[in-house]
Structure formats: structure tokens, C-alpha cells
């Protein structure tokens, strides 16, 4: 992330100098700061909401029922997570939310999952393979129906707005598989 940040900032300011958009870039950086506050406030709401709901299912024991049902699937992917760990439930709920395209639930539950995975981490300052796997699966975003996109297409009078659903599902599944492959390849190379 360090390199990327340096590149983004440097390229932006040099390109702005080149194209004469220095003023616009300065304004954009302050806009970015403002956007970060707005997004954080929005996240504060939904993250607290979902942490509240997860606390209810923890206290009622429902969390064990859920993790019990999905344990076989999740432990197959996340091999080092103990079968009764809360991470199983938060990972499961995050994946289900992603699958149904519920971004407002997926992000908070993903944050919870990362924190649950961190409790299993021995070196608190570097990522475990399980965390990387979880993030890669999230950026691949396996989703049933891309509602926003279909909505825009039909707003503009597409003949068949859902025609893109099938190609979207197939390419998202293929790219998720490739993403996993790349992750495994890097793990082997970096050993």
C-alpha cells in the first residue's frame, strides 16, 4: 500500500502540473478528506448496527448454529480456523451478504470477520494467509445479480437489461477462481 500511495500522490501532482490542473488537484484532495469523513460517518452507522445484531446472535447462541451449518464449507477454505471459532460465522455472513449484493451488510460483517481472524494471528503486525484469502474473495465479489447495473440499463430503456446477468456471474466466478490461483501461486513463490 505504501508504494501505491506514493505513486498515486506523485503521479497526480506531476500530471496536474503538466496539464495545468494544480488548482483542481488541491481542491480534489480536500474533497477527498471530506468524502472520507462522510463515508466514515456512514460506516459508523451501519457497522454499529451490524455489531449490535451480531452481539444478539452471539448472546442467544444462534451464532453457533450458523457456524455449525456452514463449518464444512468454510473450514475447507480457511484451514487454520478452529471449527468453533466466531470467525466462521462472520465469514459466512459476509459471503452471504456479498452473494445477495447487500453491500451495506457485507462491509460491516467483513470488518468483523477480519477482527475475528486477527484474534487467531500470532504476529499482529502482518497478515495471515487466511486474511489474505478472505480479502481476495471479497475483492472478487461473487454476486448473484448486479442490481445497480441492471437498474441503470433498464432506466435507459434496454431491450433486455438482464442479458448481462449471465456473463457477469460467469466472469465473476472465473475471475474469483483465477484470483485464488494467483494467491496460491504467490504463496508458493514467496516461501
Amino acid at each position, binding site marked *: *500500500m505504501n508504494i*501505491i500511495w506514493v505513486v*498515486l500522490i506523485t*503521479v*497526480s*501532482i506531476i*500530471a*496536474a502540473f503538466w496539464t495545468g*490542473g494544480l488548482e483542481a*488537484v488541491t481542491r*480534489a484532495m480536500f*474533497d477527498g*478528506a471530506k*468524502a*472520507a469523513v462522510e463515508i466514515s460517518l456512514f460506516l*459508523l452507522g451501519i*457497522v*454499529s*448496527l451490524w*455489531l*449490535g*445484531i451480531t452481539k*444478539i*446472535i452471539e*448472546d*442467544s*447462541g*444462534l451464532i453457533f448454529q450458523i457456524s455449525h451449518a456452514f463449518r464444512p464449507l468454510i473450514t475447507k477454505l480457511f484451514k487454520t480456523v478452529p471449527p468453533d471459532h466466531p470467525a466462521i460465522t462472520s465469514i459466512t455472513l459476509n459471503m*452471504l451478504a456479498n452473494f*445477495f449484493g447487500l453491500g451495506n451488510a457485507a462491509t460491516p460483517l*467483513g*470488518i468483523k470477520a*477480519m477482527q475475528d481472524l486477527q484474534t487467531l*494471528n500470532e504476529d499482529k503486525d502482518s*497478515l495471515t494467509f487466511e486474511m*489474505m484469502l*478472505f*480479502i*481476495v474473495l*471479497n*475483492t*472478487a465479489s461473487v*454476486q448473484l*445479480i*448486479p*442490481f445497480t*447495473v441492471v437498474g441503470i*440499463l433498464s432506466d*435507459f430503456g*434496454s*431491450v433486455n437489461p438482464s442479458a*448481462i446477468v449471465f456473463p*457477469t456471474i460467469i*466472469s465473476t466466478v*472465473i*475471475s474469483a477462481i*483465477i*484470483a485464488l490461483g494467483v*494467491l496460491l501461486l*504467490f504463496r508458493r513463490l514467496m516461501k
Partner: protein
Amino acid sequence: MKTVAFISQLVIPAFILFAVLYGAFKKVRVYDSFVGGAKEGLHVIFRIFPYLLAIFVAVKAFQASGAFDLIRQALSGSFSALGIPPEVLSVALIKPLSGSASTAIFTDIVRTTGPDSLASMISAVIIGSAETTFFVLAVYLGAVNIRRTKYLVPVCLIADGVGIIIAIVFVKLMF
């Protein structure tokens, strides 16, 4: 399509209702549990905020700098040569950086080229199948305050690139 949309609408309210009723049935003080859990939210956001700030400032500056136009000019020739509408390039470049900006660009493409054009189709599949990688990285890494990310970032970027190529190839084959 309608059924799936309905299920998606139903999933959250049904889950919350079930969680609350199950809790009440198990004699949990549901309200107190909820408040106790929600209290943690503030700590989490406190921790994530600086990461979000860093990424938003950099991404916004990059968008405003005109660097996109320079990259687009450099690449659009080779895109047209391959028979790919050059508009697709904008969506492909911005999707990993910003969700709202890519939706805006997509809407614009649909408006100017029509909802059933090749450009609209490819962009739709790219948006539907890719994720705003930098946002996900900032939020999830921020949540656990981890600095050493090993090989995660290159893996995500390669996966994004491959995903976009797959979307383009697949739509070109199908339509």
C-alpha cells in the same frame, strides 16, 4: 429476476427479525445486547478513519489530475485496434479506485452509446464483476491495523486486471 430481487430485499429484514425473536425466545436481553455490540462500532471506525482518509485523498487527487486522460490517450489506440470500444477503458481504470465514480461513468456511457451497445454491455459486466479494491483494502486492513501486507496488494491488482480482460473477452464472444 423479480423473485431474486424480492429475495434480496427480504434477506436483511428476515435475518434481523429472526435474530431478535430467537434472542427473545432464548431469554436474552436483546435490547441490551444490541446496545452493547453497537458500542464497539465507534472504536472500529476510529481505527479505520485514517486509512480511509489516506486512500480517498490519493484517489480524488488522481482523478482530478488529468492522469487518467493521459493513460486513456496512450491506451485507447490499442483498444480500438482490438475492436474494444474505448469508453470501456475509463470504466476499467476507475472501477478499482472508486465505486461511485465508476457508476457515474457507466451511466454516462449508457446515455451516450445506448443501453444495448457493446460499450454498455462490457462496462456493465466489468462493474458487476469487479470490486472497488482500494476501498476494500483500506477498510479491511484498517480494521486490524496491519502494516505488513505481504503479497496481498499485487495479488489483488493482478486479479483485477485479469478479471477485466475476462469480462471484455466474454462479452465479445457472447454478443
